[in-house]
């Protein structure tokens, strides 16, 4: 392994059922549910946890400022350290990486990390539309921001119009095999995906992510803890984070350099030279369908302008694909924003532990977890494997 520091293992994963409204629990109850499941999976108790790293998207989404303060008790944190990460949409991934750094830097032996969002507590549209004194809002939302970039990709790559619909249909089919996934649409047909209303041309309603309540947690441990685990663990083979400025002349918004640099670093650390053949399964942050082929290219799984062909020929399908993408249903099927990145990282870990249940990729040994945020500016990635690096 190219990276220095302590070897790090994912000892346990815990998720809540993602749904529009978890009215039966408070914010504290929601995060505790995921945390307890992760502890149980890791065969740990609260006493085994040295520190907690929590992440979520803007505090306005719940109307609770710096929620780690309120959640310290629910997360068994009294007398322990807690850090709160916020790196826009990539936050779930970044949070996991900060937690991993506490192990890699040999500060702690076991760290609980958790991402959450309880969007039903507030109003995300309000939270994202507050007037600003020095700027004019175009009030376009995330879809309005990304649709021109998708158009650019379509023009550049010559991708057929319905590639996005194919991604959306595939991920919703995958979601049927994941009991935690928010959208469960067993009767959905491809034609219905295509005929859905156009929201931000070329993004249809069916090609966007839902708005979910949910939390995802992981227990990370050092080499000794990983070795001592009775069940399978996922070993961290590489981690990387990158950010770039939002707006400057010449910026490649379709495939930002921060994305390419981050992928290059994480694969180098994991000793991977050909991601397409060496990665068995990928969980990528795809909130709008077209981002699957775009990221496949940017990350090096496909040649430039050829990512859409992998979608078209079924390469990213759980059934029969050589690089199944988002077997959990992805962000397109569940989107508790602050947790969405961590779900990608956790699902990658579940795959190499052989614990992904109905959406398990047979024999997965190495998996890739990915998250992005801001105006496609913030990137967090990891590679996990069944074997110790």
């Amino acid at each position, binding site marked *: 392994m190219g*990276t*220095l*520091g302590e070897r790090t293992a994912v000892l346990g994963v815990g998720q809540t059922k993602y749904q529009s409204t978890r009215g039966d629990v*408070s*914010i504290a109850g929601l995060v505790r549910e995921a945390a307890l499941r992760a502890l149980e999976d890791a065969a740990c108790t609260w006493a085994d946890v040295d520190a907690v790293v929590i992440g979520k*998207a*803007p*505090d*306005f*989404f*719940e*109307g*609770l*400022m*710096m929620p*780690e*303060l*309120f*959640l*310290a*008790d629910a997360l068994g*944190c*009294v*007398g*322990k*350290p*807690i*850090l*709160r*990460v*916020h*790196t*826009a949409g990539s936050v779930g991934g*970044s949070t996991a*990486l*900060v937690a991993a*750094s*506490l192990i*890699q*830097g*040999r500060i702690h032996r076991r760290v609980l990390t958790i991402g959450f969002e309880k969007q039903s*507590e507030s109003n995300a549209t309000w*939270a994202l539309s*507050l007037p*600003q*004194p020095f700027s004019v809002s175009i009030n376009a939302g995330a879809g309005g921001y990304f649709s021109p970039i998708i158009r650019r990709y379509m023009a550049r790559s010559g991708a057929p119009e319905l590639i996005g619909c194919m991604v959306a249909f595939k991920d919703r089919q995958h979601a049927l095999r994941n009991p935690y996934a928010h959208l469960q649409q067993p009767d959905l047909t491809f034609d219905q995906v295509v005929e859905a209303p156009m929201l931000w041309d070329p993004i249809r309603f069916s090609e966007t992510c839902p708005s979910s309540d949910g939390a995802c947690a992981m227990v990370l441990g050092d080499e000794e803890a990983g070795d001592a685990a009775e069940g399978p663990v996922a070993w961290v083979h590489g981690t990387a*984070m*990158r*950010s*770039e*400025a*939002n707006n*400057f002349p010449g*910026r490649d918004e379709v495939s930002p*350099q921060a994305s390419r*640099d981050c992928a290059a670093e994480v694969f180098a650390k994991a000793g991977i030279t050909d991601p397409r053949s060496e990665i068995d399964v990928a969980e990528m942050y795809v909130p709008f369908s077209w981002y699957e082929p775009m990221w496949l290219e940017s990350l090096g799984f496909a040649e430039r302008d050829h990512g859409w062909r992998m979608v078209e020929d079924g390469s990213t399908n759980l059934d029969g694909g050589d690089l199944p993408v988002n077997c959990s249903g992805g962000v397109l099927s569940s989107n508790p924003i602050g947790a969405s990145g961590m779900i990608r990282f956790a699902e990658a870990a579940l795959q190499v532990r052989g614990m992904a249940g109905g959406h398990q990729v047979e024999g997965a040994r190495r998996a890739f977890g990915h998250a992005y945020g*801001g*105006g496609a*500016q*913030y990137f967090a990635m990891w590679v996990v494997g069944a074997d110790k690096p």
Partner: protein
Amino acid sequence: MREVAVVSSAIHQVEALTFTTDVQLMVPLINEARDAVGLTQADIGFTCSGSSDFLAGQGFSFVQTLDAVGAFPPIAESHVEMDGAFALYEAWVKLQIGEVDTALVYSYGKSSPGSRRDVLAVQLDPYTVAPLWPDAHSVAALQARLLLESSAVTVEELAAIAVRSQRNAVGNPNALRASADVTVDDVLAGAVVADPLRATDLSAEADGGCAVVLAAGDRARSLCERPAWIRGIDHRIDAHGLGVRDLTLAPSAALAAGKAAERAGFAADAVDVAELHAASTAQAHVLAVAMGLGGTGSGNEVRIDPSGGSLAADTLMAAGLVRIAEAARCVSRGDADRALAHASSGPCLQQNLVCLLGGE
């Protein structure tokens, strides 16, 4: 532990930055901190910042502030929705791994556009406490009242803390409340604003920011004549509920100080100077007792808040990082061989970070 030091810093705190964006605030500060050690962003291995969307009044507000760094080519970067002292902690952890040798840390806050004391009410339990909108001054006053009732301190002693801060702040360009000749009687003559606290008992609300450069080992020695080495750093949190804690104590501050001391090899009461992040004189007293500063039998006199501390200028989200910068400057200037910097978060000192610094 890998040796990591503060090698430069830049601070700017004023009463109100009315016509300044966060980017305009941070560009000169980040440049000043990098220029002081001759580094450009390309030389920085890791960047970490702290800020609050609730102050900016905008979700994802830190995304725009990234423009102040010059993040292209892309950088390895992270952000905490916490005081910059915690961003510094994350950067220190990153430096421990050994992948990178330098880090840039910055944080900033502009609370003047709103009513800070009311904004902070939304930090409280959102179901049972926040709906009552207890403002931050009233919450701090509850703590001070309990402290007085417990006979741990007198009103005059709290006034003396206010006097100490104002006198020490003289000559600090980043202090808002400074006076060379203020007396306890002057302070006690002031009106009570949140019984038992007077305006001078409450920290002076500031807008501002801070940038710090960290470097490891010989890299630090090559950048700076006298690096301020981080000998120990730790942070802990207490329970959230105001009713389940003894507000006259700060167990997480004591615990963090003890853990930092284990790494440092010297205790908090062995430092020459200490910079405290307190929202009130009462909190400054609670912290000094919790961390054993002054009068625990060591015979060592700790100079508390040589800059005036956060009582003299309290920039939300940056005050803790400013404490580390001020303490590090004391070490780098040769004014201190050992220094303590403290940062806190949450109501009534719920969360506390302690950083022990030392010269070569």
